[in-house]
């Protein structure tokens, strides 16, 4: 394949990856930003979202597009409810101590994963895309659904941004992020804000999963990769900075496709992992975040 189309494909794939990364990571970033909680179970919320999408699309007698739309609404709601429950029952009682919450979310990770193994089984199962549409260029074909994923991610991220900057709830969340005690002094119910934030973060992971599952398969171990990638994006973008997260997702998504053309993909992963470690050590505010 000549260089032009090659680059086009790399850019297309990079954009899809960036969109998916941004959507998956933004929830993690939000939870860390507002609650200072590193949610290691984030990938499992993603996975539960995908598995719920399988259940909904399999058992609802609607055409694929409709049942997928239903899944897009129901799965995040259920996941958000699970997250709110986990927050109330577990994280709140730990008073959000950073280290204890990490251990607890590792525990939640195993519990969710194993619960899905029991209820859903170990198989990878496909979820049909809401529509099948292939774009044919002179050099290669491309999935139209993937382009839809990019558009949908953009729309959802815009909605999140509007919610955070324009709505009262978003304002309350940002106030709590700045100072939990002052927020409490102003009569903000911090417990509810936290539960809501945790639910929102998990719900966003589930939305990402429902969008992505038609191009992957629902599998009980699928949460591992999104978790690590989200970590990479959130840390390089600056812990807790949503804008940094988005920039990092774009940079990493676009560069990953190109880098893995020149290096072995395993080597690319090694370099990305080490980069994260080095960023935390030498530039904890992230590469794109403002200085704390």
């Amino acid at each position, binding site marked *: 394949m000549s260089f032009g189309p090659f680059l086009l*494909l790399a850019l297309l794939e990079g954009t899809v990856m960036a969109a998916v990364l941004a959507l998956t990571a933004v929830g993690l970033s939000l939870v860390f930003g507002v609650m200072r909680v590193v949610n290691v179970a984030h990938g499992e919320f993603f996975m539960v979202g995908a598995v719920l999408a399988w259940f909904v699309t399999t058992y609802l007698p609607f055409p694929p597009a409709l049942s997928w739309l239903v899944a897009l609404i129901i799965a995040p709601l259920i996941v958000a409810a699970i997250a709110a429950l986990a927050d109330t029952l577990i994280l709140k009682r730990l008073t959000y101590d950073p280290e204890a919450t990490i251990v607890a979310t590792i525990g939640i990770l195993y519990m969710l994963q194993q619960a899905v193994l029991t209820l859903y089984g170990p198989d990878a199962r496909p979820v049909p895309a809401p529509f099948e549409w292939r774009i044919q260029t*002179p050099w290669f074909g491309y999935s139209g659904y993937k382009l839809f994923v990019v558009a949908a991610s953009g729309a959802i991220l815009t909605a999140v941004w509007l919610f955070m900057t324009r709505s009262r709830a978003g304002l309350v969340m940002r106030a709590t992020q700045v100072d939990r005690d002052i927020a409490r002094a102003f009569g903000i119910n911090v417990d509810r804000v936290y539960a809501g934030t945790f639910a929102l973060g998990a719900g966003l992971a589930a939305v990402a999963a429902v969008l992505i599952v038609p191009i992957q398969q629902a599998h009980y171990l699928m949460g591992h990769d999104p978790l690590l990638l989200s970590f990479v994006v959130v840390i390089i973008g600056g812990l807790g900075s949503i804008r940094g997260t988005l920039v990092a997702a774009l940079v990493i998504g676009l560069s990953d496709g190109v880098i893995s053309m020149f290096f072995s993909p395993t080597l690319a*992963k090694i370099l990305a992992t080490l980069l994260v470690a080095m960023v935390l050590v030498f530039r904890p505010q992230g590469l794109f975040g403002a200085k704390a």
Partner: protein
Amino acid sequence: MTRKLTGLTASRRAVLQGAGAGLLTAGFVAPIWAQAAPIKLGFQLHRTGIGAAYGRWYERTAQAALKMVNDAGGINGRPVEIVFEDDGTDPKRGAEVVEKLTRQHNCDLIFGPLFSHVVIGSAPRAGELKVPYLVCSEGFHVAGGKLNRWSMQPGITDVRAQVQSMAPWVLANLGKKVTMVFPDYAFGHDHRDYFTAAVEAGGGKVLAQIAIPPTETTFTRYMPQIPTDTEVLYHVMVGPAVLTFVKELGEFYGSGAKPQIFGFIDSLEAVDMASPGLEFLEGSHFWEGHCRNKQPDAPDYEATYRAAVGVDDNGASVSDPKDISTYGHMFSVWETLHIIKAGMESAGYQGAADRQKFVEAVEAMTVIPASLAHVQGEKVFNGKTHQVFGLQFISRVEGGKLVKVHTSSMEDGMYPDAVDFSTQSF
């Protein structure tokens, strides 16, 4: 804990499942079994972890084979039980499971594991416990000499023989310039090394070798690396993302020009050929260890086997036509159990003291004719390398079904012995 320390409690679920068939028929067919202690076989099962999609069907096949053996009078007139233990597809747990099956459940031998790292992690312990360890793995580790005299692979041909016997037909019928796509770990490397060697020996050329990390979930970006003058695209993928790989391959080529595609059925094992996005596979070819779609020339016992394991003529579960079996591999469990029966009977196996005799009896096996017990076809066992050799199939996708177009010869898969276990001490 105290209960456990007595060493008496068996795995409840495993005993219920494993013994169910045996005990039922025990009272029915052969009343003398009332006195005969059962032969206990341990099954090291990938019930969870990355190998679980295979594990489920391996368990089902083992149950079916067990029922058949017991219905036919058991082994040496004794009923047979299988104790299943999950190894989580993890080598550390695998070794512990070998220990548990041997010493806590007092199994006579162990069989069943598929994934290479589990086999290699568990085999040393089996060797130390001097318990026969019959793997259903395809890996080249047994015949490659990595393991020990107690480890054997009598139920399925190894990867090296499989890929080597594909090369002549691929070169003659599909093209000479090959690009390979394979997972970047040992199983994929065996494909890479042995197929490349066979292609070069046959006068072809491997243009590119594209290794994909096992954790990858999206593949499109690898596809531009396929050189445009590729005549044959050779693919083999394993794991939960296989369907994504094949679908994205289809999207990439779309309706444009594409090379001949030759894949190992591993890329689509447990996947429905009718899944949306797989239409482009029409006319492409697959290696199959055992033909998923029942072929017109299939022998009578093929139907018996399918009924026993609960699989219909399309390779799907009889209870759910969308639940596709790992048909191309799971026969290895069935055949291994029949090797166990034959080996034990020829060794006059009485108990754990005869384990060495059992290994020697299997080593003495040579030609194994096709039958219901060896449903995949005729085999030749090499007692020196502990590896069995069999026929391989190439099928073409026609109307969403896999139609056999070629059967390799036994000689196609043969290679020089890398090890002689029969001279090693026990």
